[in-house]
């Protein structure tokens, strides 16, 4: 969750004038639930974070309970439906149920479920071109021990984006 946010913020840095990445984890960094907020804007981010974001990516039951009701009307919910069984009762938000963990396992690495959701987010919002995220990932991991995962990272981003385009053209839907 935190890596996804940081990569999004880093990629956003070359496209937006104001970028804020706000992580909230404490001891959960060693395992457990954590959350982060990313704000990409060309207007000054007076606030560090908002309780009512325009989009939320939810990867756990706790996160669902806490944040599903808080997304702005007209906003976007992206849910890892491999983990979260809930379905929204709201009719004022767009929801995509994406079996991200299942899809990541099919790719061979459960860890990239976050990037599948990030790819979906970018396709659904067009907040940034996919290439910007690819560049941020390459900048972050080239020359590190994470470098060997780069090909699968990039594949995951594309897979997430494709999930959204397919769903818009009647392809694979979340279950």
């Amino acid at each position, binding site marked *: 969750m935190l890596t996804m946010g*940081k990569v999004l*913020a*880093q990629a956003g*840095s070359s496209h937006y*004038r*104001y*970028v*804020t*990445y*706000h*992580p*909230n*984890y*404490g*001891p*959960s960094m060693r395992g457990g639930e954590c*959350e982060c907020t990313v704000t990409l804007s060309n207007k000054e*981010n*007076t*606030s*560090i*974070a*908002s*309780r*009512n974001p325009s989009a939320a990516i939810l990867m756990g039951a706790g996160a669902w309970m*806490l944040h599903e009701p808080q997304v702005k009307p007209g906003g976007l919910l992206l849910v890892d439906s491999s983990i979260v069984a809930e379905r929204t009762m709201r009719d004022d938000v767009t929801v995509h149920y994406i079996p991200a963990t299942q899809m990541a396992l099919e790719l061979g690495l459960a860890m990239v479920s976050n990037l599948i959701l990030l790819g979906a987010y970018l396709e659904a919002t067009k907040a940034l071109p996919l290439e910007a995220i690819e560049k941020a990932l390459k900048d972050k991991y080239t020359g590190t021990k994470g470098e060997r995962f780069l090909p699968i990272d990039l594949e995951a981003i594309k897979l997430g984006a494709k999930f959204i385009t397919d769903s818009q053209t009647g392809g694979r839907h979340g279950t």
Partner: protein
Amino acid sequence: MADRRLLSGNEAIGWGAILGECKAFFGYPITPQSEILEFLATELPKVGGVFLQTEDEIAAVSMVYGSSMTGTRTMSATSSPGISLMQETVSLMAYLKVPSVIVDVCRFGPGSGMAQTSQTDYRQVTKGGGHGGYRCIVLAPSSSQECCDLVQLALWLADRYQMTVYVLTDATIGQSCELVDLKTRDFGALPDKDWVIRGLDARGGVRQGFHQHMWDYVGYHQDMNEKYREIAENEIKYEAYCADDAEVILVAYGYVSRMAKGAVDLVREEGLKVGLLRLITLWPFPTNTLRELGSRARRVLVVEHSSGLLVEDVECALQGKVPVHLLGIWGTHRRDSSGIIYPERIVEEIKQMESVA
């Protein structure tokens, strides 16, 4: 083009130290400030500085004292319980007029506390912290940019007034990332450090007493009061946001002041005349500015992530002439230590306060 990077508040503090020509850093890791050590461990030696991870915070601040006595710009950083451990030496440095900069990335207290955000150290850093009735300047950044800039200012102020300057942040400011223009700040000329210890050889074998007030405590306190007055006249810093026509004034610092700024934007869209006094120096406190803003307002709302510490100084400044409300730690979005005070909660408080008015 300016060097602009996405930096956490902690990394920006490290950059501020480098740009502010800090040449020695002694510290001990503690969440949520460890990234400052991590950064300076790598970067400070590259610019000819000394970085040392000590065995604890008491050793760290003692080395700050020793290093600073040689005239070297020196810093330490820790989080709340570490600040408590340092107090004996901070008090000693206050007596001996030794410059130092100490960063407190506040965690949740009291006791060993929790590693997440809070503002429970306000009273400790603004009211001395250790024994002996001394004061320290306290700067409170509210963004990564300000972390970088205010650490440079802190290093300058410490040399200018020969005292400890705290930079008080919190886990939210320390760990959130924002874009920072890495710029060296120039605050003007500084007096010569004619008080530094140079060793017997440099003084032809004559021993040097480095304290002008040895045993003269009355003289010491008179001199310091004069200095505190000078600081209060010259060094107060704040941001008044949408405050000119404000009927309700919010008062906040640190991460909460950013949330309050967001809240002002939200209520202004609905036509409510709300403004913010964002404190940048916590001591010296902008008493006169607050009094003036308060005299034009119907009420004042203090927002702080604690049980109510800043509110005491606000009440003192306003002298009972304006009603003062407090949105404290109970305003966080969850009851565990991950809770933070969001702009929307502040908006709710403003509306509730106004509806019962």
